């Protein structure tokens, strides 16, 4: 690997392995009084944390790099893995750098985890971010505006200074740049997936969980420049697939690499969807809370945890397949993930109405065996290529 790219990848990998949040500690130590706020998937308005001068830190469990010692005592065997590894991280003091935690409304697991957090860590700030499922401006919009206003008040209190509208508008602009960089990356990757191997690209996304947003945007831009210059990255006869179901508990890196090695080029996915939840810019003029509200109502991504008032559930997935010229969809959901797994039959029906190929398997963030998945993804990829031959 060329040194420029290697530098970026190594930096991202180091952050990926930083389960103890050393980078966050360092960020805090650099300026006394700094605070960091953790958040779980999927969406929280990180602009508010940023505007309070704090570091938003994405927490997505411990993956396959954490031994669960205490976490299993808190969760029954039929509950997905991310809450147990997240509790493990906290009980083993790996999350001590966080001064607060936000739990968005995505499913009953994360919801109840917020209450567990409140009981286990009574001294820390805990907030349940209950996003509206009504997308009417006068209804869900008014409610959401008030919710984020409360969050703003809380964060001001925690940070010991008011968050001005100017602070917020500035933060919105900074996050717009980040969202733009992510959109660019997804757009180029969709056209030329061979430049951006999924396991590498994932590290770049994931770095955004820990890095200050400005640095993350710079990393993404550098990666966009460097990745295509790497030797040996050229178009091959691979299948173009969309990955669905990974919006919360994250797959191990090995799993992503396995899918790719099995002959699939990922052209779209819902990995770490929260970073790309708002699919366009947020207005950086006028009332910033209103801008964030409007963006939420009109620019939110579609996924299992979001209610859609009309039409078939799978329209967005079919659109993604078409837009990205994908040849098939791989449903790859965490075991016991109610939202993803309940959504799946509806998505499959939508794909079948359009004769789009699909396959499915489940994972856990600590899955270590990929042989079966490799076999299945390989067969899927082969079958797509066979069908698509003239």
């Amino acid at each position, binding site marked *: 690997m060329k040194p420029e790219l290697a530098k970026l990848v190594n930096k991202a990998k180091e952050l990926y392995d930083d389960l103890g949040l050393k980078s966050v500690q360092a960020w805090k130590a650099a300026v006394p009084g700094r605070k960091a706020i953790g958040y779980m998937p999927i969406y929280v308005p990180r602009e508010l944390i940023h505007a309070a001068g704090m570091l938003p830190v994405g927490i997505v469990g411990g993956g396959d790099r954490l031994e669960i010692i205490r976490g299993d*005592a808190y969760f029954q065997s039929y509950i997905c893995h991310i809450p147990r590894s997240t509790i493990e991280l906290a009980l083993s003091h790996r999350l001590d750098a966080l001064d607060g935690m936000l739990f968005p409304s995505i499913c009953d697991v994360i919801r109840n985890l917020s209450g567990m957090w409140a009981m286990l860590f009574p001294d820390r700030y805990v907030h349940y971010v209950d996003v509206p*499922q009504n997308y009417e401006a006068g209804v869900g919009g*008014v409610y959401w505006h008030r919710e984020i206003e409360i969050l703003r008040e809380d964060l001001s209190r925690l940070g010991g200074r008011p968050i001005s509208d100017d602070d917020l508008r500035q933060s919105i602009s900074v996050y717009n740049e980040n969202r733009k960089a992510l959109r660019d990356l997804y757009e180029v990757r969709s056209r030329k997936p061979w430049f951006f191997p999924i396991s590498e690209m994932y590290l770049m996304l994931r770095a955004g969980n820990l890095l200050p947003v400005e640095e993350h945007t710079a990393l993404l831009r550098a990666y966009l420049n460097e990745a295509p210059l790497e030797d040996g990255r050229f178009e091959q006869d691979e299948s173009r697939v969309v990955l669905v179901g990974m919006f919360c508990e994250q797959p191990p890196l090995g799993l992503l690499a396995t899918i790719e090695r099995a002959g699939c080029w990922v052209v779209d996915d819902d990995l770490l969807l929260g970073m790309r939840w708002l699919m366009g810019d947020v207005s950086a003029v006028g009332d910033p809370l209103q801008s964030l509200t409007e963006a939420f109502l009109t620019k939110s991504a579609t996924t299992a945890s979001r209610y*859609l008032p009309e039409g078939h559930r799978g329209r967005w997935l079919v659109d993604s397949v078409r837009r990205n010229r994908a040849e098939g969809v791989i449903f790859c959901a965490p075991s016991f993930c109610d939202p993803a797994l309940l959504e799946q*039959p509806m998505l499959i029906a939508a794909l079948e109405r359009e004769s789009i190929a699909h396959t499915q398997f489940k994972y856990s963030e600590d899955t270590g065996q990929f042989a079966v998945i490799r076999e299945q993804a390989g067969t899927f990829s082969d079958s797509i290529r066979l069908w698509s031959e003239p």
Partner: protein
Amino acid sequence: MSATPVKETPAVDLAQKERSMVLQKQMIASHYEELATAHDSGKKVVYTFVPGNLTELIRSFDLLPVLPEINALQSGMRKLSGEYIAEAEKHGHSEDVCTYVKCDIGMLKKGNIGPTGKKLPKPDLLLLSYTGCFTFMKWFELLREEYDCPVAMLHVPYQSDGHIHGHHRDYILQQLRTEVIPKFEQVTGLRYDEDRLREKMKLSAQAEDDFVWVLESAKNKPSPIDAYFGGVFYIGPMFTAFRGTPQGVEYYQALRREIEDRVTRHLGPITPDGPMEKERYRLVMEGPPNWTSFREFWKMFYEEGAVVVASSYTKVGGLYDRGFRHDPTRPLESLADYCMGCYTNLGLPTRVELLERYIREYSADGFMINSVKSCNSFSVGQLLMLRQLEERTGVPGGFIESDLVDPRYFSAANIKNRIESYLQMLEQKRAARVA
């Protein structure tokens, strides 16, 4: 989730059939009869959920409610759920997800025959009251794919800190005014009639007073009721189609009179094997029951002299015992408050506080958690609740695992063992205290 068992219930073969049981049976039978002929007689049908149900509003539009959770639990009791779940899994539903949903989808795929053997009518409207459970949303989205009918979504904010906030109430009110009521009007062709709603709410509040009296009768020693296994029958009319109806009022009056009589005579609860002779253990129960082996499960308790004096499951349709009443003077506001206050819509710390109060107020010897695989809404956090409750009350807790309607997850021998050893442990503690 909630309960109104119809067949194979203790009501059928209890030594003494009490008037309330007969009444409830008649009410349910006539409701299902009405449903079976609904479309022929020009009635409209709305499917909705138990937590946060808007029964008074529904009834004020002359709509007939169908509660899919009730159908699922009925299927469980009638030993049909295994087959229905298999059917849903055959259609691509994961084995990992809530079995109520799969049971309902399986039932639908197999002809939608309801608990009384008659076909259930298709919905004219799906009222997605999204209260206390994320899965509800996916459930009705799945049904929406099956039925070509409108959906009214009512998103009820979670009470993570245990308080109702003004903007939460306003949000629900706005949804009622701009989403739910207009859809009711559209489907029925009727105008919203607030006076009619008030009338119904008056009746609700009346029945709610008696219902609370019944629940609190368990503070007596011996308790005249089992507030979990028996409780699922008592919540039936209140949590389903009969709030705001004269029959509902009549049922709770009758029930109260019967229980008053039991209290006067110092009698324990009635079980499927007749009245319970001696109350040996008073328990508080967290989590829903298992339906596929409901009677067997209950027997494991009553044959040991264990009676449940308070349960959280009987609060999924509202926390009336903590003071909530439907209020005819502020009908929509009160519906909003009702929705927010249902048990599974409360943050875990509030749930723990509630159970702690039950343990103290009902002088419980112990508490038990039945953790069901299906229900993340109930189950996530229960192991921490167990610890917290033990710490706060000094009362030991028991933990068992089963499922609602998936017979594959009811291991009778295991559960019986657990219950027995738990009760033995309570006995030993008691003996040690006396010594």
